């Protein structure tokens, strides 16, 4: 485990070096982030000028949801998406060969090669939004809620990662899968609202197919007194199963790539 961490840290450092070459991107990221958050706040204000609660969530509670949405979005754009896009490119161009001749876990390698330093700004912006919302809520947050929130965030991040890797694994079969990026972006937009406001079939889809519920709604629930121990346990089990499934599909895809399964 220690060597894994060291490997990940080396990659992180190198990726950060890569990013520092493009300082303009930092300011672009900030502007982009501000515009996105600004627009979302306006929409939120508009909705609450007509009603006091949406599906049982008050405006400040929805601000928590939005904060988590921005935060996880930052994780996706800085770590998950760049790595997966790199993986798609590598499959297309045949440079994945270099990954596979390395004496390290291939899944680990393809997951930590890229790191968008500037996109990580959104993680901070998201945390800031959550903080502001909590202050405005003024209900006090128990220590265990914070711990549950952190755990739920990690699980949610893992769920989104697994979902992406599952999608990307199809690159081994389909080769051209750039449209998947757009597809995911479109679906992730729906995560800015708690999944409980969507009709049943869509809610189930956003929970188990595209794990938006686990990525955004569950962590936000932890901070707004909505998360039961059972739900958190459910999130743990779901993540474990999804991770195992992803690992299986990934190794099947690799075997297919090398012609081991015919």
């Amino acid at each position: 485990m220690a060597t894994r961490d060291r490997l990940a840290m080396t990659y992180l450092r190198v990726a950060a070096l890569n990013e520092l070459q493009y300082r303009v991107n930092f300011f672009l990221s900030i502007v982009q982030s501000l515009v996105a958050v600004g627009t979302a706040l306006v929409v939120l204000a508009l909705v609450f000028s007509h009603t006091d609660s949406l599906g049982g969530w008050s405006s400040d509670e929805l601000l928590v949801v939005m904060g988590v949405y921005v935060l996880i979005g930052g994780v996706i754009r800085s770590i998950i998406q760049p790595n997966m896009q790199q993986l798609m490119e590598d499959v297309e161009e045949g440079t994945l060969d270099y990954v596979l001749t390395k004496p390290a876990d291939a899944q680990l390698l393809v997951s930590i090669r890229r790191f968008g330093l500037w996109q990580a700004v959104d993680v901070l912006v998201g945390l800031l939004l959550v903080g502001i919302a909590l202050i405005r809520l003024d209900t006090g947050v128990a220590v265990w809620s914070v711990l549950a929130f952190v755990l739920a965030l990690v699980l949610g991040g893992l769920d989104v990662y697994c979902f992406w890797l599952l999608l990307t694994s199809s690159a081994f079969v389909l080769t051209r899968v750039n449209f998947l990026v757009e597809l995911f972006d479109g679906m992730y937009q729906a995560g800015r609202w708690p999944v409980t406001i969507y009709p049943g079939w869509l809610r189930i889809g956003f929970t188990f197919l595209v794990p938006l519920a686990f990525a955004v709604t569950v962590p936000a629930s932890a901070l707004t007194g909505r998360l039961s121990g059972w739900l958190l346990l459910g999130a743990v089990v779901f993540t474990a199963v999804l991770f195992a499934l992803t690992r299986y599909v990934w190794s099947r895809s690799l075997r297919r790539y090398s012609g081991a399964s015919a």
Partner: protein
Amino acid sequence: MTAGGDVDIRVEDLGKTFRVPEREAGLRASLRSLVRRTHRDVHAVTDVSFDIAPGEMVGFLGPNGAGKTTTLKMLSGLLVPTGGHATVLGHVPWQRERDYLRRMTLIMGNRNQLQWDIPALDSFELNRAIYRIPDAEFRALRDEIVELLEIGDLVRKPVRNLSLGERMKAEIAAALLHRPQVLFLDEPTIGLDVTMQKRIRSFLAEYNRRYGATMLLTSHYMADVQALCRRVVVIDHGAILYDGSLRELSSRYSPHQTISVTLDDQAAELSAYGEVLSAAEGRYALRVAKEQTSAVAARLLAAYDVRDLTIEDPPVEDVIEQVFAGSATTVEVTR
């Protein structure tokens, strides 16, 4: 040290057949293939066998699509064969054991692994972490390789600012930081100018001398092979045509030699001595059967005022061409 004893690479009846979807040209055929796909088996490699001893440098020759890259990919663990067997350093390559991967490297001239935007030195750090090379050892070998390749200044520049040849040198350095015992090189000098090719060649020879590394090398440039490899394996249509010394390849596949003479007589008629390849300003080139060259040379010396006379083997490129031409006819016959 290796399970194979005096053999580093052992390949036995290795074969790879790809199943590829097939359809005819045209819209109608495309639509039909949506419903029912027909497949065709492509035999990329069939029954390839050879042994390579530790420290040996072997040239792997063949035209495009002959099966060289497929074989290299099987030996470096990227492809699983559909038939036969192979061991490298006592390991079955496609099981991809870490112990094996740590002792080999694959260098492909047309693909790069270095990060584009940062100096190669930083990318080297990644390899140090992946191969878990102890710091002191890493620094020593890195500095040694950097010095041998004369890339001390280049590794500090972002890779995107390097020329193709400079980048290739940095790529090779990155691929050797873990001091692999077996090197698979697929066209390492492709697209490089002659000076750069020479540099890389002499570096590879030096690496082989210092560390006794085993190398299997494909190249379209015969100069690479001539400079580095005493032994060549020639492959075409997925099967081995020749395995032996480069010298014997010439004598077996080219029964001719070229006699070049310079005469005072500018209009000599030499067709009685052999096939006249060229004749200009008193310089003549004759193609003569190998066993007759000395007799023909003697007759020329007796009959003319010879200013200069040399006997040469044909260039290796021509010999190789001859080998493939031969193989094409055999294929025609077996069909």
